[in-house]
């Protein structure tokens, strides 16, 4: 084994000329400060994409600094990895990106590898694997302050000597060391240095072990028990950790609902008022084309925009839980329950992600190494209550359970968790029968104060992705709804001049409505909203709004109209009917995007199974809810 410099990888670095912007990748262990560093370096100049031909998410950005060649480089935040050779597909993607031209046909010119000062052994094993690909690299030592507080750390000069690579200590949270890192990257792009480690797993292990020992790192200099270990003893204790986890979830959703509700209302009021009035003024006449633009398109755009604060808050809240280090503890606590239902502990990640959005949750299935585990988890994910359902919860909970809306929303999340566990027990006896899962090993990252600037930047990027990806679907679907509502199927009406109850839109909903009489919402508006919700849950509120606007513009606030509708359809048991409706929304298939991903990963049969099971269970639960609720 040799651990000295190697000649630069000529083919890749020949690209670092005036003709192209250098491509630099950020690699490192999960929770090593890598993504915080990425956010700090790129600010708002970033976007999220899926790696080509995969569902693995990558963040791309532009790092601007006067010391960089051409004052900027393209920066890619690779998935956090422990093992890029034998790890999950997300982890091995790092190796593929480094070895092939998978990013816009360009090989990376340089890797900035984060070395977690609190866990240098793990970082060095990853570095050894990267070195086996002859990748020119710069090392960025992170978490040095945390390591120092524990009486340990990494000597950057010694690390540079042992690896023959440039080393810079950085603190992405404060920005300390970033100028030096930029200068080092600039130097390395013109005079790259590579570490050389012999091929093979054992060689990587031996080098990482020897280097860790030589660094004298990883051994705590103090016997004092850190406060974090005391905290972990409590957080990881089942009788403390599980109730605390529930309390944290409840507080998080209370915060989201409390903050988001007025923002959603404010944006909606401005959009539906001055903005749409202005649009009507700009488009003279009252022909169908004015209605098409204003009611069919701009109204949908307003719906998308009103979701933005909600999505931002949700992304921010989940990021805070993750960045603080708490989510890993919660995952470990939840792991006990997951194993009872036959799932691998790692399944907690996609299941928790599902509470943000089902789509990335399905993408996260790749962390599971067993096909049956992936399938079983995939069947559970649609029962996790994604944030897209939250506007529906908020709307009806505020209308029917004023003063207890937060508790009502919490109960729906609790229902979701109970159904996930129950469905898991079924899966254990069916899909997972005879399956043996691999062992579970969870890294407990250091507790940290979340850095809101970095998290805000990440939340903004993801919110932009929501607007451009989900938003497009929403606007198109709402425009299609407008078209159906504009087609007369009875009466003597012109196109787009038809009362909604005479439209094709209402005809289909009316035909299906009696099916929901046992659940208390035998009403075409409710049926229509649920049908539209199969496209995307974000559309349910919009569908209600549009149906009421089309039906009777003087109805005023949508919540008042909903109370009238549900009271009428349930024979005076409006609250029970609303609860049944909410239960249905919580349990039936989330959206077409999720269905598409299920089909892509598991085929039509399993997609149809998932959708069918979801609708059947949602219907049964809604009927049960109404039946019981009307007695209360």
């Amino acid at each position, binding site marked *: 084994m040799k651990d000295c410099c190697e000649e630069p990888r000529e083919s890749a670095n020949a690209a670092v000329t005036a003709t192209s912007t250098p491509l630099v990748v950020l690699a490192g262990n999960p929770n090593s400060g890598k993504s915080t560093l990425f956010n700090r370096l790129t600010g708002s100049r970033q976007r999220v994409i899926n790696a080509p031909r995969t569902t693995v998410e990558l963040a791309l950005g532009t790092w601007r600094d006067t010391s960089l060649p051409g004052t900027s480089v393209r920066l890619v935040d690779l998935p956090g990895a422990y093992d890029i050779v034998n790890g999950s597909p997300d982890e091995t993607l790092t190796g593929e990106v480094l070895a092939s031209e998978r990013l816009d046909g360009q090989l990376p010119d340089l890797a900035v590898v984060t070395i977690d000062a609190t866990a240098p052994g*793990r970082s060095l094993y990853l570095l050894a694997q990267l070195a086996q690909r002859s990748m020119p690299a710069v090392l960025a030592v992170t978490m040095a302050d945390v390591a120092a507080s524990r009486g340990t750390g990494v000597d950057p000069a010694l690390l540079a000597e042992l690896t023959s690579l440039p080393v810079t200590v950085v603190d992405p949270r404060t920005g300390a060391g970033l100028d030096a890192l930029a200068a080092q990257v600039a130097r390395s792009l013109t005079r790259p240095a590579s570490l050389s480690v012999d091929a093979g797993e054992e060689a990587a292990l031996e080098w990482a072990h020897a280097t860790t020992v030589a660094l004298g790192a990883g051994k705590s200099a103090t016997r004092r028990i850190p406060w974090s270990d005391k905290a972990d003893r409590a957080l990881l204790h089942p009788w403390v950790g599980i109730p605390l986890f529930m309390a944290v979830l409840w507080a998080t959703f209370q915060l989201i609902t409390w903050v988001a509700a007025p923002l959603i209302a404010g944006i909606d009021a401005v959009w539906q008022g001055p903005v749409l009035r202005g649009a009507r003024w700009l488009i003279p006449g009252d022909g169908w084309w004015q209605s098409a633009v204003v009611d069919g398109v701009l109204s949908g755009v307003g719906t998308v925009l009103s979701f933005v604060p909600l999505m931002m808050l949700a992304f921010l809240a989940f990021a805070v839980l993750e960045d603080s280090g708490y989510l890993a503890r919660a995952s470990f606590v939840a792991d*006990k329950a997951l194993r009872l239902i036959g799932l691998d502990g790692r399944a907690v990640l996609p299941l928790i992600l599902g509470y943000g959005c089902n789509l990335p949750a399905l993408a996260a299935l790749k962390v599971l190494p067993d096909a049956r585990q992936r399938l079983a988890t995939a069947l559970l994910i649609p029962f996790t209550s994604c944030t897209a359902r939250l506007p529906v919860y908020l709307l009806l909970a505020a209308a029917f359970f004023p003063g207890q809306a937060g508790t009502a929303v919490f109960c729906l999340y609790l229902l979701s968790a109970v159904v996930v566990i129950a469905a898991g027990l079924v899966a254990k006896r069916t899909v997972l029968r005879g399956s043996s899962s691999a062992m579970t090993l969870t890294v407990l990252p250091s507790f940290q104060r979340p850095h809101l600037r970095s998290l805000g930047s990440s939340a903004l990027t993801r919110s932009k992705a929501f607007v451009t990806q989900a938003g497009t679907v929403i606007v198109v679907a709402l425009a299609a709804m407008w078209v159906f509502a504009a087609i007369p199927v009875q009466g003597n009406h012109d196109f787009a001049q038809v009362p909604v109850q005479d439209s094709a839109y209402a005809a289909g909903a009316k035909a299906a409505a009696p099916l929901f009489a046992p659940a208390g919402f035998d009403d075409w508006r409710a049926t229509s909203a649920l049908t539209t919700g199969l496209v995307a849950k974000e559309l349910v509120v919009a569908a209600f709004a549009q149906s009421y606007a089309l039906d009777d513009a003087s109805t005023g606030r949508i919540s008042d109209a909903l109370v009238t509708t549900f009271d009428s359809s349930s024979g005076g048991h409006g609250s029970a009917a609303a609860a049944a409706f909410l239960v249905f929304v919580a349990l039936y298939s989330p959206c077409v995007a999720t269905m598409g991903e299920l089909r892509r990963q598991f085929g039509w049969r399993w997609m149809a199974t998932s959708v069918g099971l979801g609708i059947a269970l949602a219907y049964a639960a809604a009927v049960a809810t109404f039946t019981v609720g009307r007695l209360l």
Partner: protein
Amino acid sequence: MMLADAPMGVALTVLSVTNEEAPRRQLVAHGVWPGASIEVFHRAAFGGRVIRLGTDRLALDARACARIEVDAVA
């Protein structure tokens, strides 16, 4: 002794890890390799253990604990 049998709060050295390919790779990638210094600081439910690995903290389930042989540091 296996990790599951190790006492809490005692400095341990990893003697060996399983030869099963996938679990071994996973342990090694996380720094649990022969010679590593660890200490059990929390006993989790279902036979799980939470260990200190230097300044790092790892939570292992019973199946992982059964694949790690350790010895107390004299």
